[in-house]
């Protein structure tokens, strides 16, 4: 993991997934666009898959975060327990800051 890379978010930060459409390949699923979650962990830095997809080097590498969402906020009429969560790896350029903070990302 490249620790020299500047990170915008820390575990516990409340973030919003960008609501934009993607041009070409990207790894942010549609059902998360515009949704709010909490950073649970920093996974490292990786070459940008959106550029690797077109045979480019994918540099500079981008930070990948594990973001935790409440299932009940993702799906209408979610029938499972209210505590159900979903963790998804999302690259930094798909995340927007909010003013929120949550202890330990819980």
């Amino acid at each position, binding site marked *: 993991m490249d620790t020299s890379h500047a990170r915008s978010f820390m575990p516990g930060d409340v973030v919003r997934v960008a609501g934009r459409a993607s041009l070409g390949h990207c790894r942010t699923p549609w059902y998360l666009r515009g949704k709010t979650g909490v950073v649970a962990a920093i996974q490292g830095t990786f070459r940008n898959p959106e550029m690797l997809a077109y*045979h480019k080097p994918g540099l500079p590498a981008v930070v990948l975060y594990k973001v935790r969402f409440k299932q009940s906020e993702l799906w209408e009429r979610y029938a499972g327990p209210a505590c159900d969560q979903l963790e998804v790896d999302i690259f930094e350029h798909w995340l927007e800051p909010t003013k929120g903070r949550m202890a330990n990302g819980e």
Partner: protein
Amino acid sequence: MPEPKRKTLKRKGAGGRAVHDVGGLALGSIDREEHDLALWEKRTDAMLILLRDNKRRVLSVDSHRRTIEDYGQQAYDSTTYYEKWIRAIRNLLVEQNVLTRGEIEARMAEIRARHETGGRKISRGKIPW
């Protein structure tokens, strides 16, 4: 590869999604059964691994994904997992100047003719580029 069945799924409420990005849409239940792999499917898997290794670097997981995600909806819905893979491998070989389209088509015609002569049943289906 068998001729794809005409089965285009309605993507109600799909908005601006890419064709593969269907998480959360009502597209029916998922087939969770294990399926035996045909020899050509195993070969397709092996070919992908070889083409993306450090020696060759013809493709990456991401360029392979991108090629599959660029299929039209009908081609996407009517092809199986490894059919999507082999079509993408073929197209990336041309995109990366490893083989030409003419070379691939000539070889396919040669194999088809050989199988026909040998009395083997062959599919008339063609996979669009």
